């Protein structure tokens, strides 16, 4: 047997066993959580508006993203902006996933999951922090929200704050609509916005 054959046989003696990885991965996620090195845990959940990425730090939910926003790109942005210690670890997202499930089932009107606001700052954060005041099933215009945030003329900045909301659905930027009653733009796409508004008006 020559060395090339032996090398090939070695490969066969120690084959790739990707099927063994999920159990090891789950163990790693749990150990990292205990170890305090799991800076960002994430999971994806299926919803009526498509798969949503949920990511949380130890402080709370830091990111919700639609498939249209490209989950890989969103995770890379989290690695760049917060920490690259990012592991798929659904356990930390249990509460967020449960509350979103209830919301999409029409049995939840407000979210209680702790939020980590570190991706928002300044006026944008001030705008986003006021959005939960627009009640479930209600809508407000961009101008209304600008007034609510204390800067009535900053209508365009409210639009930017909504367009860059790191926590869509949970922080209800979908309830901010155009003054003429049209739904207006949405980071998850206009269909997702309509679906959420329809869901809330039906419940």
């Amino acid at each position, binding site marked *: *047997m020559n*060395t090339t054959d*032996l*090398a090939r*046989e*070695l*490969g*066969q*003696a*120690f*084959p*790739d*066993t*990707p099927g*063994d*990885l999920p159990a*090891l*991965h789950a*163990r*790693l996620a749990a*150990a*990292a959580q205990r*170890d305090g*090195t*799991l800076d*960002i845990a*994430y999971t994806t959940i299926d919803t009526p508006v498509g798969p949503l990425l949920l990511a949380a730090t130890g402080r709370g939910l830091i990111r919700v993203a639609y498939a249209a926003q490209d989950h890989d790109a969103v*995770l*890379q942005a*989290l*690695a*760049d902006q917060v*920490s*690259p*210690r*990012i*592991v*798929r670890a659904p356990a930390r997202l249990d509460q967020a996933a449960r509350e979103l499930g209830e919301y999409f089932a029409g049995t939840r009107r407000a979210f209680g999951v702790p939020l980590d606001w570190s991706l928002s700052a300044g006026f944008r954060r001030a705008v986003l922090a006021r959005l939960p005041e627009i009640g479930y099933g209600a809508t407000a215009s961009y101008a209304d929200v600008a007034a609510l945030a204390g800067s009535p003329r900053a209508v365009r900045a409210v639009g930017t704050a909504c367009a860059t909301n790191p926590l869509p659905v949970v922080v209800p930027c979908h309830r901010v609509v155009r003054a003429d009653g049209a739904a207006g733009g949405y980071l998850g796409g206009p269909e997702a916005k309509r679906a959420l508004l329809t869901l809330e008006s039906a419940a």
Partner: protein
Amino acid sequence: MRAKPPFEAVVAAHGTTVLRVCRAVLGPADADDAWSETFLSALRAYPDLPADANVEAWLVTIAHRRAIDVTRAAARRALPVADVPEAGTAPGADHRELDGDLAGALSRLPPRQKQAIAYHYLAGLGYAEVAAITGGTADAARRAAADGIARLRRTLAAVTISAEGCR
């Protein structure tokens, strides 16, 4: 500056290779623990890893250190035994049921040869990278791998002959 990918991407890209290396160097019984400890250590250190580092070589380096820890712990557990087994044979003890096959033969090689073979042939590292992990020169790593391969070939040839003799 090149962006550093989320650690999850590192596990996805290198998880199976590191598992193969752990199995080859430690045997199946200790491989899972070594894999978990390797990736937990790697996660801790990940923010400080240079973005242009060879991630696979870095992971194998960590796995190598974990394997040494596991081997030492196993040696401590085995201390009260009067006849201490030869270095290099103890960690492969759980391969014994596989006697005669390649995995078993590899487990009985001296550690340096076993490591050189695993890191070069299974992890695909060059001999300079192997040497950086195990110590010594690249030439010494190449010789260790060649000696190990020669010994494996002799072992397997002997097995093949005795198996044919049984017919």
